[in-house]
């Protein structure tokens, strides 16, 4: 017997509706109900950041948000990062700097780094590392990720009018 709730949220700028049970996480609904598999599950308990999304403008782990809690809220996922004009500077820098190897953590890192750069356009290396401490990568040792984020910050600054 299911007790599904009807939820309306704004996902990547689009009004979206879905049915979900109270115990389903936002991560589960994004992946299994809405087919948005760009957000990944790495641990399901808030320790790896692979499921990072932005909820009402704040960076969160979607495995620790109940889908029902998104009623009336905005959710931004990796699928919304690139625009019709092309890749976001972060995505472009990740490619240029080879900041991904297996790529499973990459959506989480890009969402997290984008949240940082929109708040702090010129972070130091240490600030980037602290902000991203909740995103685990096992392949890269973070070196090229940090370089890509710092590089994207410069590109984004240069683009400002």
């Amino acid at each position: 017997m299911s007790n599904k709730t009807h939820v309306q949220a704004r996902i990547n700028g689009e009004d979206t509706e879905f049915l979900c049970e109270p115990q389903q996480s936002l991560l589960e609904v994004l992946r299994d109900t809405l087919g948005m598999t760009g957000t990944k599950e790495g641990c399901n308990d808030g320790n790896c950041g692979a499921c990072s999304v932005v909820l009402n403008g704040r960076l969160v782990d979607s495995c620790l948000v109940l889908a029902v809690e998104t009623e009336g809220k905005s959710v931004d996922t990796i699928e919304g990062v690139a625009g019709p004009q092309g890749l976001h500077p972060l995505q472009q820098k990740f490619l240029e700097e080879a900041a991904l190897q297996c790529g499973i953590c990459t959506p989480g890192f890009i969402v997290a780094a984008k949240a940082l750069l929109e708040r702090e356009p010129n972070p130091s290396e240490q600030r980037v590392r602290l902000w991203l401490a909740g995103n685990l990568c096992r392949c890269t040792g973070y070196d090229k990720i940090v370089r890509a984020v710092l590089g994207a910050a410069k590109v984004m600054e240069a683009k400002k009018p």
Partner: protein
Amino acid sequence: MTTSTPKKYDVIGTRPIRHDGVEKVTGRAKYGADLQLPGLLYGKVLRSPHAHARIRSIDTSAAEALPGVKAVVTGSDIPAASDTVQSLGETAVRMRYLSNNVLAGDKALYKGQAIAAVAAVNVNVAEEALALIKVDYQPLPPVINVMDAIKDGAPLLHEDMLTQELGKRTDKHSNIANHFQFKKGDLEAGLQKADVIVEREFNTASVHQGYIETHNGTALWSSDGNLTIWCSTQGSFMVRSQLAQLLMVPESKIKVVPMEIGGGFGGKISVYLEPLAALLARKTGHPVKLTMSRAEVFEGTGPTPGTHMKVKMGANKEGRITAAQVSLYYEAGAFPGSPVNAGAMCALAPYNLENAQVDGYDVVVNKPKAAAYRAPGSTQSAMAVETVIDEVCEKLKIDPLEFRLLNGAKEGDRRVDGPTFGRIGYLETVRAALAHPHYKTPLGGPHRGRGVASGFWFNAGGQSSCYISVNADGTVSLVEGSVDIGGTRVSVAMQAAEVLGLPAEAVKPTVVDTDSVGYTWVTGGSSTTLKTGLAAYEAAQDVKRQLLERAAKIWETPVENIELVKGVFRSKHDPALKLTFAELAGKLLATGGPVTGSASVDAKGVGPAFATHIVDVEVDPETGKTQILRYTAVQDAGTAIHPSYVEGQIQGGVAQGIGWALNEEYFFNQQGQMANSSFLDYRMPTSLDLPLIDTVIVEVPNPGHPFGVRGVGEVPIVPPPAAIANAISHALGVRMTTLPMSPGKVLEALWKKEGGRS
């Protein structure tokens, strides 16, 4: 960051964007758990709560009766298990072990071992069903430590296992599966000649590969008995052959579709979920998907062995090692087959020794069955050997890098385990480390220390296949079976591009399933850039040959008169006759048909890899916590096809090595149950725990490969724990002999040195 070598190539050595990059940075790339199929059922696995127990019976009736449950399977459902139970032949025994690791037989041998699996309409129902499966366990005393396991009278995991001793099967029942030995020269005479002798014992804890993506597997049978498997694996052909053996189904009936893979490091070669998906899918007639939780990954897959090791080394005052003795006791986990052999072969490999002996013991314990983890076995033995060398240097007052120059292996030297080195670049890595500014920079503060260590990995070759077809617009489609875990699509494509005189972007690589390409061995063993690169090279040569012939046909001139130079086909004699690759490609369909080249190889000519690392640490003597201040990793890559991905492999291996050195460990309670099976308490480095990692790529090309490639993926994980142990030793004046060197362990070592708390 590459050492300067003259520019020999057009494409090789450049840094094009990887072909699968856009998919991965936009979240569109599909990994195994992303797969969705109509009518999909979801599977879950029941796992043993006991580290050691006899399974008296399993009653699945209540689970099967639960609404929403479509099938339940246990070990008796695996065809191979029942078939080979009587045979003691080595293949049959290995198959029985594999089968029992997929689903237990008559014993549970580790906490987390798979006992049964359920397929249901959703994951919640599947989990409820697990709770309804009644297993009658008779708990047995567990053995959870290698030195306890080898004691006389220790509980036996496999009552029928007979110890193999120095090449001969004995009639002794013990937990030692195998004891082997490598010897060279006269150990005792060598020790007599020594002016200093250092002897140390080590204990290292089990660690996990820690890939961020958990295991997955989806299976679907067609009505005519054909099985399709989708999974994230390092080797789709390996999955196919394991399934064929377990299910006793011909390989021709199985197709394995490799999805993108979120990290493997050796842990995603053996099958875990794929056979369960196949069995459940057959029983239900529906596709069945299984994924592991993070706790299941820790408890139900294959970490690397914990070990106990002894090293005794003698050297004369001129700085030459006169004798070295190494004993390695590795925990294989529940079934035999730890990488102690590799650990034994690598331990002393960087050094040219006259007198040495290495003893290796493969020991079963009630822990998950060990799987490969990046240079399997080598990090552990390097921890022991490279720190003893450091102590020898300290006693002799010789710089540890100079010492390595005095003793380092070079071409023509024979390893303790037998093989003679061909062209290698070990000494080059040591010289590069010596010359690096890092080595001369003052430490700049109290409680700081610098450590160095070297490492070796043989690398592998193996079978691979590739075909290349020419497209009318001058691009080529390259088809391969090598799963791309870290950028091999691009490095393989670059090798084909180099042959054909094309830019890397003009090659379109695709990774395909087992029906669509020739046999391809795993993406592992640091073999892919070599073996699939070789297959691509030869397929490209085949294309080039055919295109030269086609140009000859078009120009009605003998093919010897035509050459391909920087992407242009031209006549050697008539400058008017030339066609770009694209122009010729556009003419193919009209001049005789499409051109496709192919190759299957069994790549020999493997070039081993050496690394030498330098690390600076700062230790807080009040808390025992170590910070990595600076890290420089020097490695011989042969020829760096794509330097960014070579750097990435080095940096990733270093990061894993740092985690192994400082904080990662399987924490077992007295009952042999893992207490820390989550990323909260299994502590892998975060971005805040590491500095930028400097890489120096030394290039001593491997003569066995057309572009000089040496595998790069594994050796970087070998030196870090030893280098960090040496650095901590220089910072604090204590020798660390355990891994991890967590803050508590460092404090204990400090307190022991001070004879009590300060």
